[in-house]
């Protein structure tokens, strides 16, 4: 009996002391976290892909809460969850949702094996970043796809694969979440995260070559030579040529496909359009008009900028054996 009593008293005392200590510690060292952070995290996809530009979903939640306190959720987008998730986030934070148009990764290179002859053979670690440090790489084009598949390894959604026939990566638009991981992985900034466009249709310059026309032409049969014909033919001022390279602004493009016809190098591609019918003008004209009004609306964000190519610092090694 005595033993039991002592045990109960001792344990009770220990419990009491521990409770007092815990009480003080929990007050003294309490970490105040905004409860909204947890709520926002709960609606995020928890893929932790980093596509939003923040370290994982919890990092994005913190950023959203801070941004909401700052007054606007502008520029915050979870590429995986898209608009539905952002609407929920905005709802939790009591903000109006800024609708971002859906985007997709576009590989801006069409330098397939037959278009772009190999002038050298690479022998080293199979990584685009390594190959990029050798200079032009295996082909004469210093801007085109290197073909080692860094983007494929970077994709967490299994949405990009190398096509062994063309030697180029291909994006699976169903799976692509436009998280931008491939774009960041590409040392040459070929992959653009671009507006999906109406009905998934896009007109894109599939080239990234900023060399002068003659050089670009020699390196690759499918290169943009910066001739400017597309600029002249475009009625909507959607195309501009900078550094010998044409770029079609997806927000201004009305998908008329005139530039595609006029491009002497077939560097401009219309993606996901139905095959051309014999009389394209009459058929597609009314369609274009409906697209005009709707295509402009969702455009909110600034022009998507291609990722900056990794600088080639490999050359300035700091010694001279």
């Amino acid at each position: 009996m005595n033993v039991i009593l002592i045990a109960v008293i001792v344990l009770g005392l220990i419990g009491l002391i521990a409770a007092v200590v815990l009480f003080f510690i929990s007050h003294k060292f309490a970490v105040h976290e905004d409860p909204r952070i947890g709520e926002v995290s709960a609606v995020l996809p928890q893929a932790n892909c980093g596509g939003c530009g923040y370290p994982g979903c919890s990092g994005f939640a913190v950023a959203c809460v801070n941004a909401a306190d700052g007054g606007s959720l502008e520029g915050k987008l979870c590429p995986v969850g898209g608009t539905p998730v952002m609407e929920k986030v905005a709802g939790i934070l009591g903000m109006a949702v800024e609708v971002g148009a859906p985007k997709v990764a576009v590989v801006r290179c069409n330098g397939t094996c037959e278009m772009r002859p190999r002038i050298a053979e690479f022998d080293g670690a199979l990584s685009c970043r390594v190959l990029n440090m050798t200079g032009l790489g295996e082909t004469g084009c210093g801007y085109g796809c290197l073909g080692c598949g860094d983007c494929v390894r970077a994709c967490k959604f299994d949405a990009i694969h190398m096509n062994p026939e063309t030697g180029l990566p291909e994006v699976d638009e169903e799976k692509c979440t436009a998280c931008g991981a491939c774009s960041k992985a590409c040392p040459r900034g070929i992959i653009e995260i671009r507006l999906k466009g109406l009905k998934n249709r896009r007109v894109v310059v599939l080239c990234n070559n900023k060399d002068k026309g003659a050089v670009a032409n020699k390196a690759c049969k499918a290169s943009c030579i910066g001739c400017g014909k597309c600029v002249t033919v475009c009625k909507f001022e959607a195309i501009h040529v900078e550094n010998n390279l044409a770029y079609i602004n997806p927000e201004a493009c009305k998908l008329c496909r005139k530039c595609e016809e006029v491009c002497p190098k077939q560097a401009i591609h219309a993606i996901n359009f139905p095959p051309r019918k014999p009389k394209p003008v009459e058929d597609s004209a009314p369609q274009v008009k409906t697209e005009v009004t709707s295509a402009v609306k969702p455009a909110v964000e600034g022009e998507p900028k291609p990722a900056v190519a990794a600088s080639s610092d490999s050359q300035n090694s700091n010694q001279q054996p």
Partner: protein
Amino acid sequence: MKPIISLSPHVHGGDSVQKNMYGVCIALLPALLASLWFFGLGAAIVLVTSVISCVFFEWSITKFLLKRERTTITDGSAILTGLLLGFNLPSNLPIWIIIIGALAAIGIGKMTFGGLGCNPFNPALVGRVFLLISFPAQMTIWPVVNQRLAYVDAETAATPLSVMQRAIAEGDPGILSELPSLKEMLIGATGGSLGEVSAICLLLGCLFLLWKKIITWHIPVSILGTVALLACVMNVCSPVYANPLQVLMSGGLILGACYMATDYATSPMTHRGQLIYGVAIGVLTVVIRNWGSYPEGMSFAILIMNGFTPLINMYCKPKRFGEVTAK
């Protein structure tokens, strides 16, 4: 001409995994010959079984379980594991036990972790310790030397290590007189696992490894030095502890210090780390030998320190160039 492009360096020193692995195998040759001389038929059967089954398991696991296109049996690492495993077994061990040991060594010790270079523990020792714990009776009796035609039927006797342990346990220095002479221990005419008896042959092989720069001196010297130092101190304190020279040459100490602890994948990367690793193995070996329940502590000591290797690697960075003048 379509030139080959790559980043520098454009030349290679010509060293290869094969050169290192077969180098160790060559270094083990003198000890192998000594074991054949002393244990005869038994040694031959154990070694051949061990090497063949290790290579077979490596091949079949890479081919059928991992489904890799390239099998790695030509790189010599499986042969080396087989040799070392055989060296760690008594020469009267039945074939089926050896095959189980080889399966444990290659299957559990090596391929589970991804194969060559990925294993945290020395595969041969994993095999030996697996057998030691599973078959303690068969693994702790060793035949008497010079019965060249005997195999499982060989006559057995106490080894120097068990004599030493008994002397400590009973506190009677007189038991130590049962130990073989220093000369016998040096050439290997004494009981023990088949590859660990001839100190002189093992040291010869070790010199070869050092000359070929396959290993550096840090691990063997630190292990042997630590054990010798502790043995000296204990020998001076109490006569029940054996003479340091006898301690050094008994059991698998030299084999372990020169060939097992120096295994690339499981030892630390920096010289400083290797010294810490070696000293710790030495201390653990002496502790287990003298006060543990198993007579031989080398394998356990090495395996324990293998487990610490990643930690040592994390904290023992090499001295960076210009570090001293930085402050």
